[in-house]
């Protein structure tokens, strides 16, 4: 357990960060594969072509995410020219700055090899050049440069419908993130959530999906919905519908609009949670005084009961990324705590021992952390711990901070913050170290965020 006051970061973590801050030469890593982009799911087609540099692309100059947290990477980004180019630059800048891992500096040259001297003088480590041309169908050329080495790191040309300009900006952002930090980015993703409006006594709660930066927000349901879950592998959301007198689980394909109901539970189903392969849902089913966990094959509807705890509540199940274990929230010991068990349902053992109660267990897709909500002394905290229960850290606190959902690379959590009295429900994101909490603008109130995988 970690005591938290003003600072949401433990002493040991602070020491580790200080160590990472020691200036060192940029690591040279093996050349990453170029052309990392796939284009399906866009409005119309996207063609991606590598741009020839004079020589082969230079090895990516990388620093680690941990290093970048304390010393954000200075990167110069110019306007890509024209209104579309300018818009792309803005979205790209917002993506990179929003991580807290990049410091975006103004760039000057749009095309050709940039003049590195002024970039060096302003302290830039990397620079982007890019041009946008055409209307209707646009061609966007983008190059990433290592300012210190004076070499091109990556060059790619995208040809696609102008309507896709936002996605192109996010895709370029992900390329920069990966080339500079050595990990996949998460800008070309969406967040599903519950859009809340109306009376706080009886709010309207509708399923909504938006880009991770809040753009393109769409309300998808007219009826009451709760606890949505994005498939970790495909364009699909499962959620709990209050459309009828009995809550039902729907599985909704975003691309086709097809949906089906998972039915025939021996009790009342609660919120669904996907397996890492996207083929199975874990569903708590309330019956009598408790709720037991079931796994349900989405295609066949076949169900298997995983817990049998004699009237205890078992909710918020989440698979480890390798599918071998499940972390969940149960009051089998008297109060809500986190437990871990094998994927088949055996060998449950308690994981949380801090003060207060725990809930909202969620396993990071990296496998290294379990996110949770802790309720103590009438206030909520959002935290992470190691899968063996050690190393608990609180990231942020408030009257209510809950429903953590990891982004695909496990570096950032989306969550819901609200004030007392059911007021000011909003979706926010925070770095897993507790740095850089930000709100995502939504048209109405927002709760129960669920982060999508990288768009396909």
């Amino acid at each position, binding site marked *: 357990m970690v005591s938290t006051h003003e600072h949401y970061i433990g002493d040991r973590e602070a020491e580790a960060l200080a160590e990472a801050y020691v200036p060192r030469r940029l690591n040279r890593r093996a050349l990453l594969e170029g052309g990392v982009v796939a284009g399906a799911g866009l409005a119309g087609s996207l063609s991606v072509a590598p741009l020839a540099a004079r020589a082969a692309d230079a090895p990516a100059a990388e620093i680690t995410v941990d290093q970048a947290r304390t010393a954000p990477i200075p990167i110069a980004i110019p306007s890509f020219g024209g209104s579309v180019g300018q818009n792309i630059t803005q979205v790209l800048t917002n993506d990179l700055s929003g991580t807290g891992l990049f410091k975006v500096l103004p760039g000057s040259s749009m095309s050709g090899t940039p003049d590195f001297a002024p970039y060096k003088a302003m302290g830039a480590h990397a620079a982007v050049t890019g041009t946008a041309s055409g209307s209707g169908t646009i061609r966007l050329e983008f190059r990433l440069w290592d300012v210190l080495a004076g070499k091109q790191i990556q060059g790619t040309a995208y040809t696609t419908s102008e309507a896709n300009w936002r996605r192109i900006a996010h895709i370029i952002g992900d390329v920069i993130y990966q080339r500079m930090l050595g990990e996949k980015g998460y800008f070309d993703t969406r967040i599903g959530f519950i859009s809340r409006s109306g009376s706080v006594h*009886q709010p309207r*709660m509708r399923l909504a999906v938006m880009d991770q930066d809040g753009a393109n927000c769409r309300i998808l349901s007219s009826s009451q919905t709760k606890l949505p879950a994005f498939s970790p592998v495909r364009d699909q959301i499962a959620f709990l519908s209050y459309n009828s007198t009995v809550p039902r689980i729907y599985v909704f394909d975003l691309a086709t609009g097809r949906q089906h109901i998972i039915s025939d539970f021996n009790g009342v189903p609660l919120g669904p949670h996907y397996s890492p392969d996207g083929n199975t849902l874990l569903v*708590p089913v309330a019956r009598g005084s408790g709720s037991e966990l079931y796994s349900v094959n989405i295609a066949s509807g076949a169900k298997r009961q995983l817990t049998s705890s004699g009237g205890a509540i078992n909710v918020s199940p989440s698979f480890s990324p390798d599918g071998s274990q499940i972390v969940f929230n149960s009051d089998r010991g008297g109060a809500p705590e986190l437990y871990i068990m094998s994927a088949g349902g055996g060998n449950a053992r308690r994981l949380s021992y801090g003060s207060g109660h725990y809930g909202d267990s969620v396993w990071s897709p990296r496998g290294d952390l379990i996110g949770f909500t802790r309720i103590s002394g009438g206030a909520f905290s959002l935290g992470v711990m190691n899968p063996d229960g050690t190393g608990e850290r609180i990231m942020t606190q408030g009257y209510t901070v*809950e429903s953590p959902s990891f982004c695909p690379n496990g570096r950032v959590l989306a969550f819901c913050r609200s004030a007392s009295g*059911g007021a000011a429900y909003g979706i926010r994101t925070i770095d897993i170290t507790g740095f850089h909490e930000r709100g995502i603008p939504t048209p109405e109130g927002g709760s129960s965020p669920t982060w999508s995988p990288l768009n396909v």
Partner: protein
Amino acid sequence: MRLKLLGALGVAALLAGCANDHPNTGIATGEGAAVQPSGPVPGSEADLVANVGDRVFFALNQSGLTSDAKATLDKQSDWLAKYPQVSVQIAGNCDDRGTEEYNLALGQRRANAARDYLAAKGTTSSRMTTISYGKDRPTATGEGEDVWAQNRNAITSVQ
């Protein structure tokens, strides 16, 4: 002066808003019923609220029925026996000091506790449905034990 007047109007509007919102908000006082000179229609939702009591309350994180809760459910049971054509829904609610998902399970546990008690007292199970709203339908807003205690309930309503 002008501000004061606006303030008073604002409060009145708020109160009206609450009362008209839906039958589950606000502590049932019977004031609405008093508007009708002849009182609520026997066997109606208003009758249940005014003359029986539509809700029972729970302790923090608990679903056990207190003696007060049992007394209210006994009256509901008698009332349901008197109006055998009436079907009811029992909605379980929670304060906002639990997570969204845990509270959905806890609300169902509370609704089931009230239903099971009524069933044991003789109300046919087919006349009762249950639902949990978790913490999404607070009766009282704000924070503190007084508010949270009002929101930990099971509310019976005529269907």
